[in-house]
Structure formats: structure tokens, C-alpha cells
């Protein structure tokens, strides 16, 4: 099911959608599924399930620590697909956020087929640009999947036009130049980038990520973006908890705060 359903619902409620990231397999496969379900129950509209990868060049230390632990515990690509299925069964829109190497190794067409069969909406690909994505574009069309590419403050207008032309679902605007991780302030570059994306592709929803950590920031971003994307702050709640149960409780509490933030953005 495309994430556009979740975006339409949020739009009808005159608010931004809330997109939450957690890697599969952390703290365990079943523990991760429980955590993601808690996040959805607390008001997250779209889930990004991370596929842990050995060489994550876009990730900051928080997400890398979690994904390293998942891999060390023996996480396999099949476990990621099982996580997608379990979360989709609970009624959430689910995208997989993945570096390209694991997808290519699995087989692009096979991955698309299995992701669609698991109820996944599509892929977010942080190290795949449209010029390299011919095989994925074809597979996404064949299985009706969303394809979310990233844009950055350094993207030229020509590249914004090219990238948004190939996106389906939404476009992921990386709010600042850098890796994932919470910041005290969301970048000043974000509103400008969102404006430039809208000029290039007026009909495509724009999600803003990299740096959002609390309800106040979620509200600030939710005023001008179609989606607020939160990753490291959520992962950190699980990482820094003394045990799994309190980690999920803390994650639920932050999710509720973020959900309230996006609802307070446009009173």
C-alpha cells in the first residue's frame, strides 16, 4: 500500500504526516517489531524500517550503534522482510530504508517482489540516485512500489527536477549537509529546500529529515513540510534504556510527543 494513503489522511487533517525510523532487528527481531508497533500506536503515520548494513555512510553514531548490534546478533535480510510484514499487518504504511548493496545482492526484482508480498510500500535509498536506479525503477513499476529518493541543500535545480521526477510516495529532503543524528536546531536550509522542491514538483509531498528530536522541532518542521521524519531520537530511546520494556515505553512517549507536535503545527 503506497504511503500516499497516509499522506492524504494527514492532509485531510490539515497537518504534516509523521514518519518514524527504526532499524529492523534491534534490540531483537521480535523486540523491534514490538517497538515499531508501539510507535505506530502512538501516532506515527509512516514507518521506515531500516535494513542494517555494514557500511552505512549516511548514518551517525546512534543509528550505526543500533544497526551494528542487529548485525552482530545475526540479522538477515529475510528478518527485515518479516518485520515489514508484521508491521504492515498492524495497519501501518511501511517503507524500507536501505543502502543499495543488500538489495542488489538479494536481487532487485526479487527484493521488490518479496517486499510487495510482505505489504511494504516501497524503498528509501540513501545511496542510490536516479541515474543509477534503472533496475529499481523498473522493479518498482512492476510491483507498484513507492520509490523515495533524497535531495539535499546542495542539489541543483536541475537535479531537484530530475530526482523528483523519479520519486513516488514522497521526496526525502535531507535538511542539512551531514549524517543522521539529533541536533539542537533544525537547519535553516530546510525551509528553503522545501520551497525549491515544491517549485520543481508541486504535486509531490516533501518530507524533511535529519535533526528532529522533539515535539517542538516536529511542530516547527510540520508548519512547512508535508512530513516530519524522525530517526536517531527514536533509536536513542531504545539504545539508552536499561531494558527492553522501558525502552519501548520511552519510545512510545516520544512518539506521542512528536505526534502532538505535528498536530500543533497548524492550529
Amino acid at each position, binding site marked *: 500500500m503506497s504511503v500516499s494513503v497516509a499522506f492524504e489522511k494527514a492532509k485531510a487533517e490539515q497537518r504534516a504526516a509523521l514518519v518514524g525510523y527504526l532499524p529492523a532487528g534491534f534490540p531483537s527481531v521480535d523486540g523491534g517489531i514490538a517497538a515499531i508497533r508501539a510507535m505506530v500506536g502512538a501516532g506515527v503515520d509512516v514507518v521506515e524500517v531500516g535494513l542494517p548494513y555494514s557500511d552505512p555512510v549516511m548514518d551517525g553514531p546512534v543509528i550505526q550503534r543500533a544497526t551494528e548490534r542487529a548485525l552482530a546478533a545475526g540479522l538477515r535480510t529475510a528478518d527485515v522482510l518479516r518485520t515489514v510484514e508484521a508491521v504492515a499487518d498492524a495497519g501501518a504504511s511501511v517503507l524500507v530504508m536501505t543502502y543499495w548493496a543488500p538489495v542488489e545482492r538479494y536481487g532487485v526484482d526479487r527484493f521488490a517482489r518479496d517486499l510487495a508480498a510482505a505489504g511494504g510500500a516501497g524503498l528509501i535509498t540513501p545511496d542510490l540516485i536516479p541515474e543509477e536506479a534503472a533496475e529499481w525503477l523498473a522493479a518498482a513499476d512492476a510491483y507498484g512500489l513507492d520509490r523515495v529518493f533524497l535531495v539535499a541543500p546542495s*542539489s541543483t535545480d536541475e537535479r531537484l527536477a530530475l530526482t523528483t521526477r523519479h520519486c513516488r510516495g514522497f521526496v526525502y529532503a535531507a535538511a542539512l*549537509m*551531514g*549524517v543522521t543524528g539529533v541536533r539542537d536546531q533544525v537547519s535553516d536550509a530546510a525551509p528553503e529546500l522545501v520551497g525549491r522542491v515544491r517549485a520543481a514538483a508541486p504535486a509531490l509531498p516533501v518530507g524533511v529529515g535529519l535533526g528532529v528530536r522533539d515535539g517542538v522541532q516536529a511542530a516547527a518542521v510540520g508548519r512547512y513540510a508535508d512530513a516530519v521524519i524522525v530517526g536517531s531520537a527514536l533509536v536513542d530511546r531504545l539504545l539508552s534504556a536499561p531494558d527492553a520494556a522501558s525502552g519501548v515505553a520511552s519510545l512510545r512517549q516520544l512518539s506521542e510527543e512528536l505526534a502532538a507536535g505535528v498536530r500543533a503545527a497548524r492550529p
Partner: protein
Amino acid sequence: MSTALGLAEAEGRFGRYGGRFVPEALIAALEEVETAYRAAQADTDFQVEFAAMLRDYAGCPSRLYEATRLSAELGGRVLLKREDLNHTGAHKLRNVLGQGLLAKRMGKPRLIAETGAGQHGVATATVAAYLNLSCTVYMGEVDTERQALNVARMRMLGATVVPVRTGSRTLKDAINEAMRDWVTNVADTHYLLGTVAGPHPFPTMVRDFVRGIGVEAREQCVALTGDLPDAVTACVGGGSNAIGAFHAFLDDAEVRLYGFEAGGDGVETGRHAAAIGAGGAGVLHGARSYVMQDEDGQTVESHSISAGLDYPSVGPEHAWLHDTGRAIYQSVTDTEAMDAFALLCRTEGIIPAIESAHALAGTRRIIPELAAELGRPPVVIVTLSGRGDKDMATAARWFQLLDGES
């Protein structure tokens, strides 16, 4: 340059290898590097300045030395391309001088680099001092321990050395960290990638900066022997010295090209760094090439006694040369490499880098095969990519040369 290569490179590809598998945030920077590089290639002033730096500062052309005692031992005519005699002791200086000059042209005051054995880090720290640029070098924590002398050299030259503690704490993790730094600081920073890997235009650009190795060797061999060599051999980690040695010979069909990867404990043990010999096509560090991966596409940790070869992938041009059959790639074990290391020390009074010892060991293996086929002792150019000072602690342990060891 062969026509096929010229066509492939127009799109940053070598057959199905190469490309740009990087975050969108880096695309503008890669395009900036590519544009600056193309302009520099066409700019006589840049070429004159680069040539002068190679000559006056680096000490190029490096010598082509006929190793007579080694030749007698191996049964061929062995010509050593003495890149170990370059300033800083390795072929790496050619690339960093080119990219350092380019960084200046782009107005980037800060260099970052990754290093395994430390040779590229030392070369980058050197050029940063020489061109008045600041410098940060990322190095896997494991490598900082086995190459402590090079860490001290980099710091002496004014560079900041950052030990990387993620993943396998070796070269591949240092590259990840350098790419993260570049994503964050791309406005004022040039990533001075040290080998012919990474996203386009690095594999092409680095190759062009080091191709003087082969150009010089070709001329020197003809001057010395009256003919081209029968074979050119080099070690292959990322593959910069090998591609530099091979490129001038690509159109000389009679010259065989051999790349020797690090076989570690033996490819069959799984503890090795033979990406071509035992890997498969995949994406790592911004390019499609041969990569050591598990069945889920996770990068497998490599192993080699040589930190400079301890890398689970290889430059995409090598992947293409392998697939087309133009170059032959074999693996050499740690033991074979160290035996060749000792052989060169004792026959020629030259202590090679352990990387280069892999090329010597491979040469030792192929000379009898070539001699049998040609019916005469073959003429083989071996690239001695670096000197062995940095590896003395490893060699001393391997050969139990220190007091108190038995």
C-alpha cells in the same frame, strides 16, 4: 588509451563497473571535482605545474632498476620500477600532488583522506604541508597500531589523525568515516581519495595522476632492453599502483598484465583480501566493482598481513580488466609475500613494502610459466610501489628478529 576504455569512461564507467552510489548531498561535490579535473587536464599551466612538482619535489621519473641477483634467483630478467624512491617512499605521492593542486584550484583549504598502511596518509599530510592546506586523516584503529610510525609521521607533518573505531577498524571503515566527514563539510573540504576506487570521477582521475608509472616504465624498458617487457606485475589492494603501471601498456597486446591480490592465510580459509579472486560484483564505497560480501550483501571483513592491501573491494577498472581478460589477477598468501620480502632484502639490499612483496611473490610464480611458454627468460617489470620502513615492526615479528624472541 584504448578506444573501448575511452568510451566507457565518458560515463564514469568501466563496462558495468564504476558509477556513483553515494548520497545525493555529495553529487554536487563530485560534479565540481569532475569539472575542475577536466579543466585542469586541458590546462597547460596545470600540467606544467604538476610535471614540475613530480620532477623537482617527488623525484620522478623513478628509476627502472635491473635487479640482477634477483633475476638470477628467479630465472627471468626482473626490472624493478622504483616507486619506493619517490619522496615519502611510495607511488602515492603522484596522486596526492595532482589532487592537492586540484583542491587549490577549487579553493578548498581542507583535505581529508583515509589510509590503511599509512602511506597515503603520509603522502596527503605531506602535500597539505607543501601546499599550505589543513589535513585530517582517518585511519582504522587496528591500522594505527600496526603502522604507528606512519601515524607519528603524519602528526609530525601537521595532520590530525583520527583513529576509526567502527566496524572492522581497518581501511574500509576509515573510508566510511571520511565519506561522512565529506558529506558534512563538503563546502570547504576536498576528499583526497587514495586509490582508484570510490565514485566517479575518482577511479579515472586517480588513475590519470598515477599513470606516469607505466608511461615512464615503458620508455625506460625500451631504452634499456630495446623492446617492451613480456609482463608487467603489481600488487592490488584498491589498485592504484597497478592501474598506474598497467595503463600505458593496455594497447600492447603482447605485454601481459598481472595483478596480485592479498591471499592472506589462503583464499580457501576465508581470511584474505582477494576481492577479484573470491568476491563478486557488488556496490561498496560509491562504485560497483568486485566486493567481498556475504549472501545478504554485507561486506565481509578482509585480512592481509599488509594493511595497505587489507580492503574488501578493488577499483572498478580492475574489475573490468579482469572480466575482459586483459589483465590476470591471482592471489598471494601472507607467507609467499614474506618469503619474497626476505628474498629481495637479501639479493638486492632493498627492503620493500609488504604490499610490493606480494607483487614480487607473484612474479616469482609466473616467471617459470612465462619462460616455458616463451622459450627464453622473460623480461618482467615489477612495480615496487613502496619501501618497507613502515613495515619493519611486522617483518621483525614475522621473522622473529627482535631480541627476546625465539
